């Protein structure tokens, strides 16, 4: 190769890299606005996710993004903006143009549980968003190691002291168990981990006695007999674990649900939200999406936006009342 050609070739290579990069990163320069009267979406629509790639929040957004893209004949690239339990993505959505060019599926825990654990000025309020509609529920199941001495709720009740693993501060996993052991009156220590996988590892390795995990995280080890499921925290039994009773069935007032719903900035026109609702309903009806829910052990919660808001309000008040009743401190908020 000649001396001149070498730098040229490497430069070309780098340029190609740069191009590929900017294409992949999903940088948009078109607005998805519906101002012109054309049917939404007219440009590409950014779907923000407040979590890293790979978790259930990310996967659900990707499944819905795929469906919306097909049903509404547009492009809905998923943009990961992880940080502060999703509060960063929420902040970005709140300040985005209310024209449908930015949308996000958000978690109930950010609005109903995290505010109980963080200072007031950092809490995210649902009033800053318009809720388009519900997506799905991702219930928590209480599990113990199959080799441990705790194989039933009675065993837990009789325990002198327990260590319970949670998937983090301000999560449903923490709240559910704090409420449970408050209700049972058991002396239990909260051991927070950084997400589902390390919590699963700790309960399998016997470093904690019990843990609350999302169904999808636990189900493989439940089915293979490594973990014993004691109960689910959701409002009703879960299709994927039909023999496991709910907390309410066990006579415990510790119902905690994690669910996700589609949000847009406040003031987004109804033409946009109607089209989104239409697209989501069509997506929910597809075989691919239903199979996705099944594979990830997700329960559909395809309700209206108003119902979601009412549910969030109810949950938040109920949780706040319960943690006061049991004198629970999730973080430094109180």
């Amino acid at each position, binding site marked *: 190769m000649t001396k001149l050609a070498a730098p040229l070739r*490497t430069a070309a290579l780098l340029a190609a890299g740069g191009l590929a990069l900017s294409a992949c990163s999903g940088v948009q320069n078109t607005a998805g606005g519906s101002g012109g009267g054309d049917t939404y979406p007219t440009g590409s629509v950014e779907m923000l996710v407040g979590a890293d790639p790979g978790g259930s929040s990310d996967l659900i957004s990707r499944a819905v993004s795929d469906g919306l893209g097909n049903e509404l004949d547009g492009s809905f690239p998923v943009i990961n903006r992880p940080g502060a339990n999703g509060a960063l993505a929420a902040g970005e959505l709140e300040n985005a143009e209310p024209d449908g060019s930015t949308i996000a599926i958000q978690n109930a825990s950010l609005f109903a549980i995290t505010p109980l654990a963080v200072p007031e000025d950092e809490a995210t309020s649902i009033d800053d968003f318009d809720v388009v509609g519900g997506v799905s529920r991702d219930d928590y199941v209480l599990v113990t190691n199959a080799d441990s001495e705790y194989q039933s709720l009675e065993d837990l009740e009789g325990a002198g002291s327990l260590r319970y693993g949670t998937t983090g501060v301000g999560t449903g996993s923490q709240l559910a168990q704090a409420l449970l052991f408050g209700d049972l009156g058991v002396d239990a220590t909260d051991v927070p981990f950084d997400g589902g996988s390390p919590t699963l590892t700790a309960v399998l390795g016997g470093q904690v006695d019990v843990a609350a995990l999302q169904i999808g995280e636990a189900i493989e080890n439940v089915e293979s007999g490594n973990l014993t499921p004691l109960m689910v925290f959701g409002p009703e039994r879960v299709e994927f674990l039909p023999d496991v009773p709910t907390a309410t069935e066990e006579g415990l007032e510790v119902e905690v649900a994690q669910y996700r719903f589609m949000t847009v900035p406040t003031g987004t026109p109804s033409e946009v939200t109607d089209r989104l609702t239409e697209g989501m309903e069509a997506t929910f009806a597809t075989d691919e999406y239903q199979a996705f829910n099944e594979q990830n052990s997700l329960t559909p919660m395809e309700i209206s936006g108003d119902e979601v808001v009412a549910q969030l309000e109810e949950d938040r008040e109920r949780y706040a009342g319960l943690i006061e009743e049991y004198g629970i401190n999730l973080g430094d908020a109180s």
Partner: protein
Amino acid sequence: MDVNAFVEGFGVVLQPSNLLFCLIGVLIGMFIGVLPGLGPAATIAILLPVTYTIEDPVTVVIMLAGIYYGAQYGGTITSVLLRLPGEASSVVTVFDGFALAKKGKAGTALGIAAIGSFTGATVSIILMSLIAPLIAGWALGFGPPEYAALALLGVLLVATVGNGNALKALITAAVGLLLATLGRDSFTGTERFTFDSLQLADGLNFVVIAMGLFGVAEILHNLEQRAGKAQPPAVVGNVWPNKAELKQSSGAIGRGSVIGFVLGVLPGGGAVLASLVAYAAEKRRAKDPSRFGRGAIEGVAAPETANNAAATSSFIPLLTLGIPANASIAMLYAALLIAGVRVGPSLVEDNPDIFWGVINSMYIGNLFLLLLSIPLVGIFVRLLRVRPAILAPLTALITVLGVYTLNNSVFDIFVMMFFGVVGYLMKKTGFEPGPLVLAFVLGALVEDNFRRSMLIFGGDPLGFFTRPISATLLVVFVIVAVLPLVKLVLDRRTAALAHDNSKREDVTL
């Protein structure tokens, strides 16, 4: 191990379409590995819709796994050539790799890294085929107390890397530990040094700091040196390591393979610790440790072998227990779920074709990577011949884009620039950034796991000594920490005695 299933697994891998997707996977992986920032997790996420169209889940996972370990190969290239470590596990490679590149021996460094990576990965795959379930059980016994002890040992080893003086290394390591405390406390939710900014709620990102301290600082430093002078491009010497160099590195590669395999099984930080421990082991064994940090070939061979061996063995928790060890493997897990395969303890029995297909595809994939490396190293090394006036802005562009793609955050770009200036000042004053970034990564591991352990032990620190692995690690820690001090005292005493004796002789004379 089921020999029939193992052989059938090879049959699966050798189907032409699977071979093709394996090649595509490792090529994509190598390419994104070269670009700092865009990691395998994000790439797999982007490619997820493509995988819906592939019928056979084995093919999907073969390709995605290829992206994951291919990225490990690619990451070395920027570490050596541009001083840009894209991942925590390739930081250690920078010390000697970049020093070699400056001596015109970039080809040697990249060549030995490719050979080491291939060997490490292959040894790891063989061990995985034989004892995956056994080692998975061991990994489960590795709880917070063990992590705390291991990471503490890691912090101690940090001071031994690099070639600066030990005191300066300790100071920068301490700064790294302090930086690790930034962000929302993961036990109480309290904000620490976040200045009421949500951007800092999750603390600082390792890649952002590393790109600033290494990459941007290097650009600034070069700009200063080259100001006003027409600079000839760097000399590029040989392109492949010679026999003597291969022989010199063989021990490092062997030890790195085993260290990487064992530590890689541990989710969260296993690969970083593996590269660090492998490097420290070589430096301690060396007759002349001062060569390290100035272009010792073993200083590249050991960590590169170890981090590839670790990347391979990090599949073990996934394939045997259904626990994804890191974000990239979590993405792979998700792709399998979408393809209708549940990955858990029963995978070997229910889907032996997937289990063995994945493992065996890694033999082939790594062979592809080694073969690809031979021509590509030659091409990449020519990058150094690009005039600095062109290379510097291009590098700057890559780092800015790379950091942005991490979290789609403009804030991160400013953080990187800040650390770029800090890194430049550190270089001017003789402080090395290596101990800082490594201590930063380990600091969070030590703190979280120590606090978790104390919760588990009910507040009794003696609990660490009731568990065999953590007790052993702590004893090793004490030995490594105290030995140099004891040696120092003994040396002084003998010196003093000799001095006394000579005085007495003077008197008697």
